[in-house]
């Protein structure tokens, strides 16, 4: 499905599916796509679906609509188009993937025997070796060639620096270090655009003199230069800046006494993400005559190239962060939707039970009151289980290992489940191991893990006649394991589904299942150093094996954790 994905702006990370014939975009909440951006008009633009694709139409907005940097009144969107409304930048993704089909038709990956060309590997090279494209310095080469080689080396190191991190602060620090290694700058600063305000915000600054003198010196940067660079989107080199006619003679440069400065825009694919500024500093009245300029045109060109590399990396990182945020939002949305659905069903049950109690009391009919109470009771149990599963799933916790009897835990589970099983005509049988020593495990957690599996087994047998669930325990001294085996004669699980049943919110029970039961059981078993294994045959039934290490309690300790355990 076609969509607009916000990569810059307040709504960064949100994806809007274009699932209707016409979708309005604007600041007001009656828009199909509401964008929280004060520079966007109340009803700014509309995306209309037509035979040619998706048409973006500007609705006479105050600040205009832009596609790939050009203002439009109407524009048919193509895959990858950048749509800018106010400060909000979105990427359009179309649904047409015919090009990939076309390419798939053109390329075949074939086995060796089928290949018409007898290829063999004649040479190979590792990533590290491949990266050493710049050979060793040769003293006989010309100064021009040496400078070119040095510049290439700097660009190569910049490319390496930007490709090795997804942390913007780390990246900017590395860029500043490289610049200071290469050029005799006294001070430097990298500023990035704040997406909300559009202001430049300093992210990294460096002052060579301050480091050498260990004196605290506040870095002042000329707004005149910054504004020029941002407005004209070009890098500038100033030498004795107070004489440069482009600057307002009354401006800050004179006050600051800058002799040489380079300021370059960080120009990315979608716009300027910030600026890099370096200068050499001499305080007013203390100028020192120098033989030549420290900064040259060549330095400026290289700085522009470095800034462009850094900007691309920053955009990629922002895009990546936006994607991560979008995935988090989607996961959170799914979680909330799923849990709300279950809570809604439980609430419905409680309302039903309460209504029966109310009616029973009104008509003095105790049977109706009892029926109502049983429904309320069942639902309070459901909400309690849901909350416990949510808590167990959301927290990493060390099991509280206490000497316990697995047969007793299983018996408790069956006692809890017997009414439910009888209600749906399922026979519940226990097959306890005759020799079951007291073992160290968290009985509360294990009870929850077994309860979830037994609940599923009973539900799976609802259509079996007669349904049967057998819960057995086994203790193997040889392999040092204890097992709880839950077998049912239900519908069975398809092989492809077995891989999915332990994924959270993947329920095969439709509206009845929370999709938390098995993931919680698996988590509990894994926290105990064990796991759950499944064997299933469609139409015959399933067998869930809950296996964990058989830990014999140390008589000198009443409670223990998994650290320092003895496994029999």
């Amino acid at each position, binding site marked *: 499905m076609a969509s607009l994905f916000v990569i810059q702006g307040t709504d960064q990370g949100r994806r809007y599916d274009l699932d209707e014939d016409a979708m309005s975009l604007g600041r007001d909440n009656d828009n199909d796509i509401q964008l929280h951006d004060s520079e966007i008009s109340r009803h700014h633009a509309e995306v209309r679906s037509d035979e040619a694709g998706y048409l973006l139409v500007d609705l006479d907005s105050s600040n205009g609509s832009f596609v790939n940097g050009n203002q439009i009144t109407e524009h048919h969107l193509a895959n990858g188009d950048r749509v800018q409304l106010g400060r909000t930048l979105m990427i359009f993704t179309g649904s047409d993937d015919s090009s990939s089909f076309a390419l798939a038709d053109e390329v075949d990956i074939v086995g060796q025997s089928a290949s018409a060309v007898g290829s063999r590997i004649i040479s190979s090279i590792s990533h590290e070796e491949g990266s050493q494209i710049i050979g060793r310095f040769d003293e006989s080469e010309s100064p021009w060639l040496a400078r070119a080689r040095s510049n290439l080396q700097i660009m190569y190191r910049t490319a390496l620096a930007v490709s090795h991190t997804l942390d913007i602060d780390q990246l900017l620090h590395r860029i500043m270090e490289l610049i200071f290694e290469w050029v005799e700058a006294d001070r430097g600063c990298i500023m990035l655009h704040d997406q909300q305000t559009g202001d430049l915000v300093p992210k990294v600054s460096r002052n060579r003199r301050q480091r050498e003198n260990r004196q605290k010196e506040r870095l002042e940067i000329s707004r005149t230069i910054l504004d020029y660079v941002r407005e004209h989107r070009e890098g500038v080199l100033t030498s004795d800046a107070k004489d440069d006619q482009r600057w307002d003679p009354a401006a800050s440069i004179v006050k600051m006494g800058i002799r040489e400065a380079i300021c370059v825009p960080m120009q990315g694919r979608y716009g300027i993400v910030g600026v890099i500024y370096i200068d050499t500093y001499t305080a007013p009245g203390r100028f020192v005559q120098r033989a030549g300029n420290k900064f040259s045109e060549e330095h400026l060109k290289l700085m522009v190239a470095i800034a462009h590399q850094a900007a691309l990396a920053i955009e990629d990182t922002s895009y990546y962060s936006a994607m991560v945020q979008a995935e988090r939002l989607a996961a959170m949305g799914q979680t909330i939707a799923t849990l709300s659905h279950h809570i*809604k*069903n439980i*609430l*419905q*049950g409680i*309302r*039903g*039970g309460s*209504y*029966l109690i109310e*009616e029973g009391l009104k*008509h003095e*009919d105790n049977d*109706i009151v009892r*029926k*109502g109470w049983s*429904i309320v009771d*069942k*639902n309070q149990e459901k909400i309690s289980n849901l909350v416990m599963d949510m808590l167990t799933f959301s927290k990493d916790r060390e099991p509280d290992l206490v000497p316990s009897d697995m047969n007793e835990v299983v018996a408790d589970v069956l006692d809890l489940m017997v009414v439910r099983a009888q209600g749906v005509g399922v026979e519940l049988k226990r097959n306890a191991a005759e020799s079951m020593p007291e073992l160290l495990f968290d009985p509360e957690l294990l009870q929850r893990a077994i309860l979830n599996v037994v609940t599923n087994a009973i539900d799976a047998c609802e259509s079996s006649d007669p349904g049967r669930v057998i819960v057995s325990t086994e203790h193997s001294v040889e392999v040092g394991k204890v097992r709880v085996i839950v077998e049912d004669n239900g519908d069975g699980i398809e092989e492809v589904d077995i891989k999915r049943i332990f994924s959270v919110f993947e329920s095969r029970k*439709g*509206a*009845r299942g929370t999709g938390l039961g098995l993931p919680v059981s698996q988590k509990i078993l894994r926290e105990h150093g064990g796991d759950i294994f499944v064997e299933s045959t469609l139409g015959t039934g399933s067998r869930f094996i809950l296996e964990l290490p058989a830990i014999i309690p140390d008589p000198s300790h009443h409670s223990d954790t998994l650290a320092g355990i003895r496994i029999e």
Partner: protein
Amino acid sequence: MTSTASERRSASVLIVDRSEETRDVLRTILEARGVNILEAKQGAEGLELLREQHPGVVVLDLEVDEGDSAGLRGAFEDESRRHESSLVMLGRVVNANRSEGVDEMRDTRHIIEKPYHYGPLIRTIEQLLQQHEAVASSSIELG
């Protein structure tokens, strides 16, 4: 309405809901008030009962089956209209436009969003049953 159809109808309510609790609550209350109850826990089973028994009111949980609730809703709308049964739908209806050719007066659908309160639902069912019986008796008199 033909007299044959009116003769077929009875003062019964068909509950189509996979939740045994919901069926239990509605059955308990309505039976105590002398209403005949038909139950189905799946859509197909409900449609069959609707075709065979022509209940006065159908209470349909739109989540009774997994998947296509719009298709299920359409089938129940068509069948209940054909058999002149009132249809009470429980759940969220995304597009509740009337079918073509059905005017407001003849639109007997009622939509109640979840989670709902049973009191208003029971009152709605009782009102619809009364209307249904009134129409049935006038049809018999006319016939």
